[in-house]
């Protein structure tokens, strides 16, 4: 009995410590966003946010061009998602429903590319993009991002199509439904949840992406929020509270959407890793 109480107390305390560890930096971002610079640098930051300062948030928009940057991030993320899904749906359908010579090699190739460090590719891609005139363009960034997001989408969608019984397409085929119709009228409607999950994952890969954007986009008007916010690291002329508010606006959609599709994301992440 005693051992059990000690055990319970131990797991409760450990869990509490872990929750504080996980949540504190996010809390601190919000708290800093609602502080003034004189508190931060002179009188010392309070442990509790001054909630009334939420009303001052619109003034942040004049310190930091965050709306423009978020707009750029959204364009990049949308472009990445659309192109990535278009390619991935077709490839996933082929890998799931056809047998063809070279299938194993194609599948291996799609997934082996995930091992390549972006930092290795950024050098030759920079050279390639500079000859093609794709530097400093949002669509160039989309092209680079899709190379990394599309294989992830293929993986999720192939698993989803594998789980649909083949009989449905079979009977449609017997009734004279062409291939294309089988894909668009039968398979796609059945995998909408997985498409949504893949879309969210791809969207936020595009939304968060920093390395290519930081290297390829020189013009600050075209910066996505990741690069724009990074320009404030170690720079103290802009009020820190404004920077943190902007960072919070950038973080919020990512966390909200993660929570909405968490179940699919987790099953997508774990499908390959968990056995048994």
């Amino acid at each position: 009995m005693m051992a059990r109480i000690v055990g319970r107390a131990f797991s409760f305390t450990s869990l509490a410590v872990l929750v504080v560890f996980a949540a504190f930096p996010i809390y601190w971002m919000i708290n800093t966003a609602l502080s003034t610079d004189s508190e931060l640098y002179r009188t010392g930051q309070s442990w509790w946010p001054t909630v009334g300062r939420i009303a001052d948030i619109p003034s942040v928009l004049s310190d930091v061009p965050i709306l423009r940057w978020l707009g750029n991030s959204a364009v990049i993320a949308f472009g990445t998602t659309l192109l990535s899904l278009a390619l991935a749906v077709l490839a996933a359908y082929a890998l799931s429903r056809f047998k063809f010579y070279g299938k194993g090699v194609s599948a291996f190739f799609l997934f082996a590319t995930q091992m390549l460090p972006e930092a290795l590719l950024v050098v030759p891609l920079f050279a390639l993009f500079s000859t093609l005139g794709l530097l400093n363009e949002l669509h160039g960034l989309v092209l680079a991002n899709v190379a990394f997001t599309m294989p992830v989408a293929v993986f999720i969608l192939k698993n989803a199509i594998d789980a649909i019984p083949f009989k449905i397409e079979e009977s449609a085929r017997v009734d004279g439904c062409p291939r294309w119709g089988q894909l668009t009228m039968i398979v796609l409607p059945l995998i909408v949840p997985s498409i949504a999950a893949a879309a969210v994952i791809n969207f936020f890969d595009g939304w968060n992406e920093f390395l290519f954007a930081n290297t390829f986009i020189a013009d600050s008007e075209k910066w996505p929020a990741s690069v724009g916010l990074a320009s404030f690291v170690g720079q103290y002329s802009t009020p820190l509270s404004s920077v943190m508010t902007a960072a919070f606006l950038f973080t919020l959609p990512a966390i909200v959407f993660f929570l909405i599709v968490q179940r699919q994301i987790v099953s997508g992440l774990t499908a390959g890793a968990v056995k048994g």
Partner: protein
Amino acid sequence: MVTTVSRSHATAPDTAPRRRRRWRNSFTAYLLIAPAVGYLVVLLLFPLFRGIQLSLTDTKLVNPAGGDFVGAENYTNLMSSGQFWNSLLATLIYTAATVVFAVLLGTAAAVFINRPFRGRAGIRAVMTFPYAMPTVAVALVYVWIYNQSGGVLNNSLGVLGIGQTGWLTDPQWGMFSVVLATVWKVFPFVMLVMLAALQSVPEELYEAAKIDGAGPMSTFRAIVLPHLAPTLRIVALLMTIWSIRRFEIIYLLTGGGPVERTNTLVINIYRRAFSDQDLGVAATIGVLGLVLSILVTLVFFGVERRESRKEAAA
């Protein structure tokens, strides 16, 4: 090699119309997969070969299309450069520390959260926030938390009478601070995967252990841990490859400093390419980094094969 849509037709007699359909089917398959594969050939495979080719030249950033062939010179120069070995060492320290702490913390979190209790869903959601948060935002917050004067870490330690530490500027602490921020960011991934693995442990095993009078510690060691082992190995491999590849958070927190303590291979590539403008040397480090990733993967698959043979024999 059998080309057929329908599994039930796989053994059907090989008549001429069937052969034609079979050919048409594999043609369709190639048509479907060609865009994706072609895309990756142009944007990943081609740049990869271009990178290997660049590593054999003295190409500079100002003229990416130029550069003369210099053979293995970049490689031999790197091999005799202390800066390169320091960078490799930083990569190994960063990777080992991140993987060990993230796997331990993530697994512990999964174990604590596995048991049903009130508010579990909410707590699990809060613990996944770091994983969902954009890395740039993570870096901004941690730079402020670590700030030498005014940062909450030094302020709190100051209350205990501990003097101010330059978490990101003191060579003794730079690596520690970067690892801590990284572990915070990635441990939820381990937690989510291990949670799924824990929930796949059959309930009967727990009951059998209870009947045999096993305590929580011995149940964990004898039943849960062996069940988790294959997942743990894969998670550790993914974490290792991702740590070798990781750029953003190190770049934003320390940029490779203080005194190159966190100058991992990936940071080194970037600095060589875009600060020193030396694309040839940068590509060479990239190729060596890739070799490191491949070696890790091969070692992993070697271990995996030995372990599964052991499990089959047991």
